[in-house]
């Protein structure tokens, strides 16, 4: 008997059975444990990261999947935040606030959408830029509703009887306000992430990607370009509204300046660095861009160099700017592309 036994060739796969689910399970477990083991500073950073993930995902649907690059994202996030603040003031119930904070930005997105039917790429981006300034002006002009430049307080959300604003023990765990908002933000990002992940695998998602890649070819393949551009604007804006609602409620106070061009640019940076048209990339980009200044601020406590003259802030801006340029130049697939290649290299190495 020879020692050589014919074995079926094993393809380098994702691992079978239990092993395949191990990674995601560990991630979920880590996310659940995280808020109870970190300081309140890092917990707060995590809440902002999770909220930013929702915002980045919604922009990626529009820009990365449907190919409509917009710098008006801050406008829709602001719209959701202000609608939420108004609803809270009026004492609306949670479902009503959510519906309003999603539907109103979605409707505005639908109205802006037709611009994208006539303009493409740079011209569309410039036009959506106008949206941000229009929004700022509206917020100041209608100061009776919005408080103008002096701003407007928001209320904590009460999710079907669970008040996100209170800090109390629940299930034997210290459920502080930050912990509650952390899980709410994770839930929203998960819902939006799954929605986009699934959309990309259905007819509307394919149609959007076809419009992105070759608009004329898409139209002669029978894709209704108008309909899917408008749908992308409406859905993305509605998701941005939900993000704004949570964001506004968490920070507690809104001023027009919060929803300036800088916020739009930050979201664009997240999806460029994270990866256009990638769910995972949106999340990675959001975490990186949101956490970076905080990490540097944290390091400044241990470094006299960083602590002097606000250098931590300057370094954050410098890193953020150079990362943006470097990714545009060298890694158009973003962090998601790096991740994909690393995983396949590891798999090849193992087999």
């Amino acid at each position: 008997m020879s020692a050589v036994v014919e074995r079926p060739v094993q393809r380098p796969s994702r691992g079978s059975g239990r092993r395949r689910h191990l990674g995601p399970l560990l991630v979920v477990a880590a996310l659940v444990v995280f808020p109870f083991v970190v300081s309140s500073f890092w917990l707060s950073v995590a809440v902002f990261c999770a909220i930013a993930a929702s915002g980045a995902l919604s922009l990626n649907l529009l820009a990365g999947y449907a190919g409509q690059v917009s710098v008006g994202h801050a406008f829709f996030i602001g719209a959701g935040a202000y609608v939420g603040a108004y609803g809270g003031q009026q004492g609306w119930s949670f479902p009503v606030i959510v519906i309003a904070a999603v539907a109103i930005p979605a409707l505005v997105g639908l109205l802006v959408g037709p611009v994208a039917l006539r303009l493409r790429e740079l011209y569309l981006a410039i036009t959506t830029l106008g949206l941000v300034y229009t929004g700022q002006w509206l917020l100041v002009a209608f100061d009776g509703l919005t408080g103008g430049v002096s701003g407007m307080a928001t209320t904590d959300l009460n999710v079907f009887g669970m008040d996100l604003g209170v800090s109390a023990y629940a299930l034997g765990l210290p459920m502080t306000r930050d912990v509650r908002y952390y899980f709410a933000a994770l839930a929203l990002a998960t819902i939006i992430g799954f929605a986009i992940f699934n959309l990309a695998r259905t007819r509307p998602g394919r149609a959007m990607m076809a419009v992105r890649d070759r608009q004329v070819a898409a139209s002669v393949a029978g894709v209704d370009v108008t309909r899917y551009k408008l749908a992308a604007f409406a859905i993305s804006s509605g998701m941005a509204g939900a993000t704004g609602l949570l964001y506004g409620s968490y920070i507690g106070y809104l001023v027009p300046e919060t929803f300036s061009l800088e916020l739009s640019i930050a979201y664009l940076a997240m999806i460029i660095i994270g990866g256009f048209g990638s769910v995972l990339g949106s999340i990675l980009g959001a975490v990186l861009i949101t956490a970076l200044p905080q990490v540097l601020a944290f390091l400044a406590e241990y470094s006299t160099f960083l602590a002097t003259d606000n250098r931590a802030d300057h370094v954050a801006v410098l890193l953020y700017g150079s990362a943006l340029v470097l990714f545009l130049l060298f890694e158009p697939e973003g962090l998601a592309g790096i991740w994909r290649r690393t995983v396949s290299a590891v798999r090849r190495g193992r087999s």
Partner: protein
Amino acid sequence: MTTTTSALDVRGAYANYQNADVLHGIDLQVEQGMVTALLGANGAGKTTFLRCVLGLMAVHRGEMSAGSVRVLGQDVSRASAQKRIRAGLAVVPEGRRLFADLTIEQNLRIGASTRRDKETSEDVEKMLERFPALRRPKLQAGYLSGGEQQMLAIGRALMARPKILLLDEPSLGLAPLVVDGVFETIASLAADGIGILLVEQNAERALDASSQAVVLQVGKVVRSGASADLADDPVIQESYLGVAS
């Protein structure tokens, strides 16, 4: 000519870009199950004619200023591209114009965008079977060879279940053996009852593969008729077939 309904019937097509007239009254018919060849040199107006048929002139800042386009008797002269596809047209564009980042399967499914039935998945399977070049449905279209891409472009067009298929220079840039495959496919599609409009620079192959042919020159029809007759026409032989007289 008025008694039977052609699959595609274009009458008196005039077209212009800005102030430049490009087509001067083109008549062209495609019958079901038959191949009509549209021949002409570069700049003769072949692609503009296809744009008129597909309703894409406005996209290219042009206009079809007069004439009519009928698909299976239905007047679509003013309809959107999408409505024309739904009426029975499909196109295999010049240069394939695939969605390179999407998979073979996704490309095929996009071809079925105007359909409302539930048989799309079955048709995808049929295409994968019909074209061996597409045996890896999860592969991104950009990784296919030129010939495979051409087959995918044809498959994508067929996913709309067209009655009339427009092919714009399907042999361009392909190896001779692959070109044979393309022309075999065209013949078998015609045998299935699809009316075919074949736009080609390769006049010899096109006349061989078609029953009727129309020759354009600077936006005008200079010859039209049975392909066999045109192949013997001395003018055609000299200008397009490279036969010295």
